[in-house]
């Protein structure tokens, strides 16, 4: 058959997560795992997933940001293609694509702990934020409430979808376990959220990541609960979600989650509404689901559980 020459192209990554290059080391081999419009994943044995994403997605704990055009599905990538990785580049020989990491900005996925004033600020704005979130969640398309959106206080939609009702019950139990600092018990309860709900990253996983982020940002003693919950995550949820859960258990989160928490706990009131709106816009329901977890976590950590409990349905 006639051979078709593939012109090689090198793209310069703009940002890379700090733990990544050392993990790639001198030379690793992986396989293309899955391809989406704005990103593609590379499976790196023994169980890692690296994501190469459009810069608009913001920093990701397992990610490299690079501009590869408007649609990653048009790069000639296909599942199972060999990928060569090292600290300086990621290459897919079958497509001639090479992403150079040298010039990329190093970004840390660790969540900075909020300063002492955060608790006070949050107490002052918590109920306004809840109202805002509920309003935005209703205002957004119907599909937004298909995840855990129905759990947000004030969102009156159809009867809660089954997975959301189940999540509500788990969150109630967590609300009891977390303040006692019983990390193991909390972990066992939280495990029931893993893999629960619709989406490529199931709602339960997004909520757990949001919850963990809130506990890390506020320095809560039980913030290590997620480790216990996600030990067998690869068997209980999708590969993509399992990777993000593992990073969250290690205290590593996405840039947009970092920004959300910085806004919610920061001293600029005006920064809060846009941060919330942007968060709700993540994925299909990932943003809303994550927000459910974040709000829940902040309430627990900073003692702002509303009189009308958002999960008492």
């Amino acid at each position, binding site marked *: 058959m006639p051979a078709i020459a593939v012109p090689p192209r090198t793209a310069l990554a703009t940002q890379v997560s700090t733990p990544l290059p050392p993990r790639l080391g001198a030379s690793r081999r992986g396989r293309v795992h899955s391809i989406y419009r704005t990103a593609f994943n590379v499976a790196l044995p023994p169980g890692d997933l690296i994501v190469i994403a459009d810069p608009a997605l913001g920093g990701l704990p397992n990610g490299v940001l690079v501009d590869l055009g408007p649609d990653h599905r048009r790069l000639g990538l296909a599942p199972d293609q060999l990928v060569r990785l090292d600290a300086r580049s990621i290459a897919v020989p079958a497509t001639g694509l090479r992403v150079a990491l040298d010039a990329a900005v190093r970004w840390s996925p660790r969540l900075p702990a909020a300063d002492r004033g955060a608790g006070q600020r949050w107490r002052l704005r918590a109920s306004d934020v809840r109202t805002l979130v509920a309003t935005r969640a209703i205002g957004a398309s119907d599909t937004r409430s*298909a995840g855990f959106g129905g759990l947000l206080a004030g969102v009156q939609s159809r009867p809660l979808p089954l997975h959301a009702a189940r999540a509500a019950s788990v969150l109630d139990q967590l609300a009891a376990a977390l303040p006692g600092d019983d990390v193991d018990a909390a972990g066992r309860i939280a495990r029931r959220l893993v893999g629960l709900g619709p989406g490529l990253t199931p709602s339960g996983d997004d909520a757990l990541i949001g919850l963990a982020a809130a506990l890390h940002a506020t320095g809560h003693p039980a913030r290590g609960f997620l480790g216990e919950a996600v030990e067998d995550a690869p068997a209980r949820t*999708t590969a993509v979600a399992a990777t993000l859960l593992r990073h969250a258990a290690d205290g590593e989160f996405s840039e947009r989650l970092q920004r959300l928490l910085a806004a919610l706990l920061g001293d600029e009131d005006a920064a809060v509404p846009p941060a919330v709106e942007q968060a709700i816009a993540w994925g299909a329901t990932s943003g809303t689901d994550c927000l459910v977890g974040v709000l829940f976590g902040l309430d627990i950590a900073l003692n702002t559980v509303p009189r009308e409990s958002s999960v008492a349905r």
Partner: protein
Amino acid sequence: MTAVVQARVFRNSYRDSVELMRIAAELESMDGVLRAGLVMATSANCEVLTEAGLFVDSLADAGPNDLALAVSASDAAVAAAALELAANRLGGQATETAAPAQRANARTIAEAVAELGKADLALISTPGTYATAEAMKAIKRGLHVFLFSDNVPLADEIELKTMARRKGLLMMGPDCGTAILDGIPLGFANAVRRGSVGLVAASGTGLQQVSCLIDRSGAGISQAIGVGGRDLDERVGGAMMLAGIERLLADPGTAVLVLISKPPAESVARAVLEVAAGASKPVVVNFLGGDPEAIRSMGLIAAPTFEAAADAAAAIALGRPVPAAMDLSAYDHEAPDGQSLLAAAASAASTLGAGQWRIRGLYSGGSLAAEAKLILKAVLGATAARHEILDLGDDEYTVGRPHPMIDPRLRNEHIAAAGADPATAVILLDVVLGYGSQDDPAGAMVPAIEDARAAAAADGRSVAVVASVCGTEADPQVLSSQEARLAGAGVLLAPSNARAARLAASIAALAAVASAATSASERTRAIVEQAAAGMTR
């Protein structure tokens, strides 16, 4: 009302959530659909599906990276329709809301079919590993398939052809490079006149040669169906050859059939010949190198060469008497244009030196090379093995290089080497025109031929170059102008590959006869005497 629940699993499915949400919403808005669950089959979600009454056995072995689709509906038909809709949406994406200035090109078969409105054929050329899946998608959608890809496993070919047979579809390939359907050329095909001859071919260049020669004689092609090189293997059973025959027999536009293949496995040959023998239309069978008696005994027309097949079919189509069956080694002293092949051979042979004896066949078409080898064997007998016929399109030459029909460089290198070799008597070439070939194959070859001649001349030798051009006047390269270019470079032209091979064999045979001669004049005398005697052994 009892709700009906049906479910389907999509393994290792990686769709983004926005897409999944949209599909789920679409399902739930369908009339008669009560509930729909479209979730990754994690254990947590399977529990929820169970609670919702949506869990069925078919979901039992799904894993967290599989997509589970479950629908509860008012009746089975609605449930099935909902699953089908979702499967179609998942097979490709609904056109996204792109910016107005952008127009997304179809990325999947599903999208393409949606865009075209009515498609009935998919032409697939992807690396072998992915080809099967794509071909399967196409067949499932009711499309015929033209599968250009090679390196597709035999088991996959069998599965695809079985599926296609069941649905009454054509599964042309894998490794099918040529077809002409409803007058539309696919792959490496020529612009041939439409007419009443239908071809079914397991050989690409065989199909090209036969169709071009039919065109040359004034007849035309109704359909030319390629079946892929492996179709007549015992394990594939000639599935598409049989399907093609069926189609042509039922086609009102086809009056005569031609079957083209290297000799099939015995069981397959029997099956094919039996079907052909019972046919209501005349069938010409060209099993290259096969036993003509077996074919004739079934009342079919046996054609030992592509040219003979074309001649017989064209004669039938034009209502003329079918020429007597030609043997591979038969000489035809008079070419249609009046030029005696023997005379041309004699005059070429007399220019050669004593040490020149070898034929160097440098081919771009595999079947044409195979035909040449057969003819050499028939004409020259045991000594045929000393000559060299190379199929430069074969895998060993094309790893990392374009095919010689597309890129002339590899063959030109060989032409130069042949000219430089003092033992070379004849260089034998095929020049294939058509939509898949380069713009000017003759033009690309002439400089190399001239250089080869010059190199030989510098050594006091001349070299005979023999070629046939497989093409038509309507081809982009235009047959007559390609032939003129070659003739201008001193190339001896034959109207078909079979005649070119015979011409080359004759030159070599006559040169051999003269090798014992001790002077140039003795040499010439020996050649002319031999030629006049019409014997070549």
